[in-house]
């Protein structure tokens, strides 16, 4: 099975406070070293295992500036066959736009069967990209995956679910969102492979060449609006997962926070 892993490097959470500069707005992270996000480490490990277990290959995709390249090189050193970085999307890009960009970048690298993301980015912790990627590609979305083992007919997937775990056989293309677990601690690359990876080119593709300028500026998910429009702190939706999902979608549509539904 060919897998594509989506990697995001984030400002090093262990960086000392003095390496961040604050001028009242967003912190200036230009002096902060970037490291692969913790959940992306798990995603990369699982992606490698899927590729190895199924005799397939792994490709890696990142989005952002050159600070992302180191993570892509780690993936190359560990066995990824190709890496692409989407350069130049605005930092405020809509999450759906980001998912479309990532999806288009994955297509550049070849056939995509299993898409693997971390559970959430280590900086904003929004936990939306995996689900949105699945939406963009029309694929099933499997959250909180902590293991994937190749077996006859597909991949045996293990997931965390409310109150425990479950396993199931995945026989189609899908998006896996990987949670942190002792089973998916990222292996260390070999130093020689890492040195060779620093000499390999990273395919850098301009965001606007993938989607076009206008599409980049689209805002589809209005994240900041719900609490304000609701006029209250929020609403807790309880019940069966399927019912909860429906209720949430209805609520978001009512708030105009989903594509095509402006109040």
């Amino acid at each position, binding site marked *: 099975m060919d897998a594509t892993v989506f990697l995001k490097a984030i400002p090093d959470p262990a960086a000392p406070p003095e390496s961040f500069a604050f001028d009242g707005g967003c912190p200036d992270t230009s002096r902060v070293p970037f490291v692969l996000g913790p959940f992306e480490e798990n995603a990369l490990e699982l992606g490698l295992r899927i590729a190895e277990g199924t005799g397939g290959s792994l490709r890696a995709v990142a989005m952002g500036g050159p600070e992302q390249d*180191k993570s892509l*090189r780690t993936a190359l050193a560990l066995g990824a066959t190709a890496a692409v970085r989407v350069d130049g999307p605005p930092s405020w890009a809509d999450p759906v736009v980001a998912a479309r960009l990532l999806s288009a970048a994955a297509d550049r690298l070849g056939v995509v069967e299993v898409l693997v993301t971390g559970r959430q980015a280590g900086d904003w912790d929004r936990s939306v990209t995996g689900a949105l990627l699945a939406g963009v590609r029309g694929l099933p979305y499997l959250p909180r995956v902590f293991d994937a083992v190749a077996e006859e007919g597909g991949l045996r997937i293990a997931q965390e679910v409310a109150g425990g775990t479950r396993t199931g056989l995945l026989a189609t293309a899908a998006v896996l969102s990987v949670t942190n677990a002792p089973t998916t601690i990222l292996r*260390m*690359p*070999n*130093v*020689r*492979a*890492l*040195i060779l*990876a*620093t*000499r390999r080119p990273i395919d850098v593709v301009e965001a606007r060449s993938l989607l076009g300028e206008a599409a980049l500026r689209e805002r589809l998910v209005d994240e900041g609006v719900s609490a304000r429009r609701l006029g209250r702190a929020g609403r807790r939706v309880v019940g069966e997962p399927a019912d909860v999902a429906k209720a949430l979608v209805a609520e978001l549509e009512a708030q105009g926070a989903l594509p095509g539904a402006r109040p």
Partner: protein
Amino acid sequence: MVFQLTDEQAAVVELVREFVTREVLPVASRLDRNERPEDCFSWELVEKASAAGLRTLTLDEEYGGSGVDFVTTALAVEELAKGDMGLAVVFAQTWKLAQTLQLAGTAEQRARYLPAYAADPRGLLAITFTEPDTASDYFVPHDGARYATTAVEAEGGWRLNGLKHFISNGNRASLYIVFAQTDVAQSLEHGSTAFLVPRDTPGLSIGRVHDKLGERLANNAEVIFEDVFVPDADVLGEPGQGFRVQQTFFPASNAYAAATVLGVAEAAYDRALAWARQRVQGGKPIIQHDSLASDLAELRMWLDATRLYVLHAAWAGDHPEAWDPMLGALPKVLASEVGWRVLTRAMEVHGGYGYMKETGMEKLLRDAAAFLHSDGVNRTLLLKAAKHLR
């Protein structure tokens, strides 16, 4: 002049840092506390470093290593020493001697020894100069200086007899570079020869493993030669040219020793800084007291200056046209003196906590002391450098 790491150097440093975080720090202080010196050494760490390609960092790519240059090696030594000095010594010796074999060995010697070293996940290297009665003498030779270890010509080779001591990796190495007196009528400067001696050579045995104050994750031992036969093919360099081999083919040895103690000093400084930021006395974090903050700034200055000197020496090793023989003696002197100063002051920043084992400062202090002596006593190295002034 570019004061910036290349992508490759940065990648190596980061990998070593990760190795330290994952594998070294969790076990180093426990290993250090073992009573028997043999129990402080860990084959498991060596094998893990092998798996990560670190053991063969300096081995040329044609043999399956990474073939990094002297600067990158010094950076790796420094980073490893931030985790543990003993382990840094285990590898600094091995990395240095792999480079020496590549520089000084014949094509036939390289073909015979380097693939075997690459293939053995426990393959470590050691070098034996020091003897109980011939020690600083090989740094500042005089007419009467001789190795007591002798090599006498025999059919097709040489017979070695003698005892070396204090040898880093002495009881762990699979291959030794051994310096022995081949012409007793001459001083060691003109009458010694370097030999390659595999561990399993009949007559080679290990004596005492020294019990050390610090740097305990490395073992130092006596290596004994009793009628050890070494074929002519295993002479490193030319017979009688041992001192020249020592002078020519270890350009970065002093820089690596310096980088080792520098790494320990940096670890101590980092801890002192973190401590000063969180320890509150006098109504505020102690770093807010000017005198203490300026103390830390001074330590930073010494560390930065030393680091530049060490990297300059390693760089000059990579660029023979820029080599200055002073760089083969002085960086370790500076680094060990600075290291000692940083350690004692960083300990003081911790107050009484620094003296308690719980903060780990005492281990760093014990470790840093090793390099006041190791790789040449400082006074002797100054004398060695002074020769070039006359």
